[in-house]
């Protein structure tokens, strides 16, 4: 018995030592340090993002008075509502149109800024970023005054040329145009700054080689600039698509979803149904419907980024 006890202890001791050494080695590893350093942020995200997300999933499974579990009942109800499909359609139109224009304008402006001599470039960069750094709730209020039904500054100016008055927020088509315009104005600087950073990382030698080969400006963009920027373009587009889909403040302030629900997007309609209509489970279901749409977009875009990463 005694021998056996001594024997077991003798075996356990080196095992414990190995484990201690293993822990020491793990702590020495850079990835462990990185994980520990990011742990507070991970916990914060879990608290502020994961918990509310799970809670909204829970809410979406309850009945209107939040006392009974209804499973997918809220979604089944939504799928039968015409207004819901109108909101889905409008959210897609809003997000896709706004992101396309933001990307296009950001790309063009980034080229202009890139070609400004380094000395003056900083000023331009700063000025062009202004729309993006002003809180959108504030800047949209200024746009609201510009579009005001009765006192629109735009209509006042257009009247000098015999044009208008244009019902900026009173007609469905114009209202959609207005909310997209403000979103593009707000978001284009983000694309501009991302593209500018990407442009600066394209080696000059590639352009020189293209010039020697006789490439014109379009061929330089198509065969040099775009391939070098494609990962940034993809990631920026994905990020912007997510943010634009989830937009609330611009539409809420400018049109509140009107006229006749023609500018409602997921977030504004979720607010209307959930808070103003006191049907929080249905509101949660509306906002959760964004998840599958964005997940599909994210899978496609990120898969493309991975593919390109592997190619390079």
């Amino acid at each position: 018995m005694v021998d056996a006890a001594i024997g077991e202890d003798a075996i356990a001791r080196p095992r414990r030592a190995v484990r201690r050494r293993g822990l020491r080695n793990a702590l020495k590893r850079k990835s462990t340090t990185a994980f520990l350093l990011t742990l507070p942020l991970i916990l914060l995200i879990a608290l502020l993002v994961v918990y509310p997300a799970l809670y909204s999933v829970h809410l979406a499974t309850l009945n209107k008075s939040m006392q009974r579990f209804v499973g997918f009942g809220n979604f089944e109800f939504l799928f039968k509502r015409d207004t819901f499909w109108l909101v889905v359609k409008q959210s897609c139109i809003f997000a896709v149109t706004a992101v396309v224009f933001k990307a296009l304008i950001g790309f063009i402006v980034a080229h202009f800024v890139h070609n400004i001599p380094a000395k003056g470039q900083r000023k331009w960069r700063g000025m062009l970023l202004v729309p993006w750094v002003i809180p959108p709730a504030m800047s949209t209020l200024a746009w609201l005054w510009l579009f005001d039904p009765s006192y629109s500054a735009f209509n006042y100016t257009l009247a000098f040329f015999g044009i208008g008055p244009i019902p900026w927020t009173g007609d469905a088509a114009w209202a959609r145009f207005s909310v997209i315009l403000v979103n593009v104005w707000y978001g284009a600087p983000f694309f501009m700054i991302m593209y500018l950073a990407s442009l600066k990382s394209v080696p000059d030698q590639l352009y020189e080689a293209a010039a020697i080969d006789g490439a014109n400006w379009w061929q330089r963009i198509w065969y040099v600039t775009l391939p070098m920027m494609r990962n940034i373009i993809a990631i920026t587009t994905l990020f912007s698509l997510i943010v634009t889909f989830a937009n609330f403040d611009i539409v809420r302030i400018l049109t509140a979803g009107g006229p006749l629900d023609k500018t409602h997007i997921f977030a504004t309609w979720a607010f209307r149904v959930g808070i103003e209509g006191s049907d929080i489970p249905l509101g949660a279901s509306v906002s959760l419907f964004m998840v599958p749409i964005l997940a599909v977009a994210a899978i496609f875009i990120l898969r493309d980024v991975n593919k390109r990463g592997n190619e390079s």
Partner: protein
Amino acid sequence: MSRRKLNRRQFVAATAATSAVMITAPYVRGAYAAGKLSMGFWDHWVPGANQASTDLVNEWAAKEKVEVQIDYITSQGKKIELTIAAEGAAKSGHDLIAMPTWWPHAHAELLEPVNDIMGPIIQENGEVNGTVKYLGQSGGKWLAVPSCVGSQIKGPCTRIDLMKKHAGIDVQQLYPAGGPPKADSWTTETFLKAAEACQKAGVPFGIGLGETTDSVDSAGAFFQAFGAELVNAKGDVTVKTDAVRQALEFYKRLIAALPPDVASWDDASNNKWLVSGKGAMIMNPPSAWAVAKRDAPQIAEQCWTHGFPVGPKGRYAPFLPYFWSIWSFSKNKEAAKSLIVHLSKPASIEKMVAASGGYDLPAYEKLTTLKIWQEQGPPKGTLYHYPNPYNHQTLSIAASPAPPKIAQQIYAQATMTKMCLRYAQGEKMEATLAWAEGECEGFMRS
């Protein structure tokens, strides 16, 4: 070391004294002997009006030895509704909270019944109007007590001069200051003709058709004047009726006489319309007139607040009450009830109404003739008929008499203004009705 000995007498005396202190301690009233009470009140937009509430609460707190904390919560951006929703979901927050219109019903299961205090309050102040009963009661149980702060009637505010000049109507004669209304000729048909005349003269009526409350409230009152109900009191969908068709025809004619951009109006648009001097009438509580008094006094002195026109089924005016409600999870319900009783005393109500410049409206029948409404001006008496002193119009809320939880959906989704717009923009009557019927069926979910 000397040790003091405790004899038997001293021991008995000390024990008796300690027991006496321990037994009486809870009954000794310290500064905050009755505990704490937190309240979320609506943040008034009339400068200084909050102070009247604060003073009344402090006066009560000092008397009752309660530590109070008041938060004034704005209704801008629906913040008060968001706070109510958050506190309801968390089952934690203020003890007492101000709830607008539909919210007591929406949170009925989470509210402390207040029948015990409502009875004596009604006895003292007089009967409450039907809208307050509809919104504040559920199954014979009072869910909340009507608050005068924030409660309002959104009646017509007319430009005396423009109406007389272009439509030939003297609103001061229809609604004389200090006397009962002589408004038999003030019908929906007269109203339409006046709207058309003012539009021709370049000063159209400013009645919104957006999705915010001012637009919905006006549409609601006109629908009721025609007897048009989208859902009846039993909860049946009653969209396809002649009354609804008549209301839509009326609105189609009215929309043709309104500014072309009314579809995008919000609750500020009509106020701006009046203050700019561009229009002959808006539907609003006296806040627009108060702004005009400050920013455009020459317009304010031509404004007259009065009653709605009478329709085939009666004369209705939108009344939007606020309520003081007590959460069932409140830790000091008795103190909350005591405070509400104090705030509902006629003297307290008079102070709050005066501080709001006559904007706030008590829901009780004995309190519609306060001095403030007789004195306010210019022009003097402009608010005399604002509180409906002669009861000549039925105070109502859009979408009633549908069961409140359904009506709230109709109201929040602005179904009535959307119907009016759709029909006025050329959609066929039956298509508009079919659309509205589908919407209302969707609002039935529980």
